[in-house]
């Protein structure tokens, strides 16, 4: 799965947690979940669990800690998908 495909899939994961659909549609690697998408921090755990379910992976606490924007989230998803192979 390409980086771009994961970015598009991540938009679906994030959609229920942001009202800023314009920012979501234009999301790129630098987009920060809280600052740019205005996602409430209380939803961060939901997002990690939803991403795990969508990509059938497990994101451990150390990896979750690295997620601060869309790019770092895609990095973690790609790393965990590779580990499955």
């Amino acid at each position: 799965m390409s980086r771009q495909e994961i970015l598009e899939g991540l938009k679906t994961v994030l959609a229920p947690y942001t009202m800023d659909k314009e920012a979501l549609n234009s999301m790129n690697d630098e987009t920060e979940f809280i600052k740019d998408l205005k996602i409430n921090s209380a939803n961060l755990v939901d997002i990690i669990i939803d991403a795990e379910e969508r990509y059938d992976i497990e994101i451990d606490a150390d990896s979750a800690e690295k997620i601060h924007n869309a790019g770092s989230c895609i990095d973690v998803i790609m790393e965990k998908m590779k580990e499955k192979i």
Partner: protein
Amino acid sequence: MISTGNDIVVLECTDTERTKQTKFYSRILSEGEIELFKSNSFQTLSFENFVWLAWSVKESVYKFHGRSHPHTLFAPTKIKIKEILLPLKQNGLDLSDTIEGISLDDRTCYSCEVNFDLLTFYTRSFVTGKLIFTVANNTECFDSVHWGIKEISDDAYIMQSREVRSFVVSKLCKIFLSNDISIEKAARGYPVIAQQKHIPLSFSHHGKFVGYAFVINETTS
């Protein structure tokens, strides 16, 4: 350095069933905190509210610490609640109106001692049927802590942001006896009083509630 950190969780905005699932709460609670819940008699606190109390405590501590350590990552299970003291009496917060105060009384609040990044922090939390509101500090004395909670009519982010700023400015105008009070961002990105840049502010919002906290004492005033 003076710092501040607060958080608000509106319980109807959380997913109760998901909160009770191990895959959810294990990302917030450490093993020690799960044991803390089991060993205490939290008759007035359900497990799901305990999880959100812990979240609120950790988020507040992270904000407090983040003012001076902006590159610290938020890893809830690494912020460890060492002790929780229950309030002596159930608080009767009337959330139908704006609530503000100075100091947070351990007789009406849940009081926590928290370890993070080799430091010790203290928190005070109100837990009501509607929400959990927490303020963090680096001492056990909360006498100089100003705080406020307000219900708003619209949960859109722009309204939450506007309402919390207007709420805190109104309070600061009363404290400084001035109408010339505004908010700006410090170089590290957190809000401060534009006319008193050494005084940091902490804002929180969730659903239709907003909250603030700041410290004014002999050092800051």
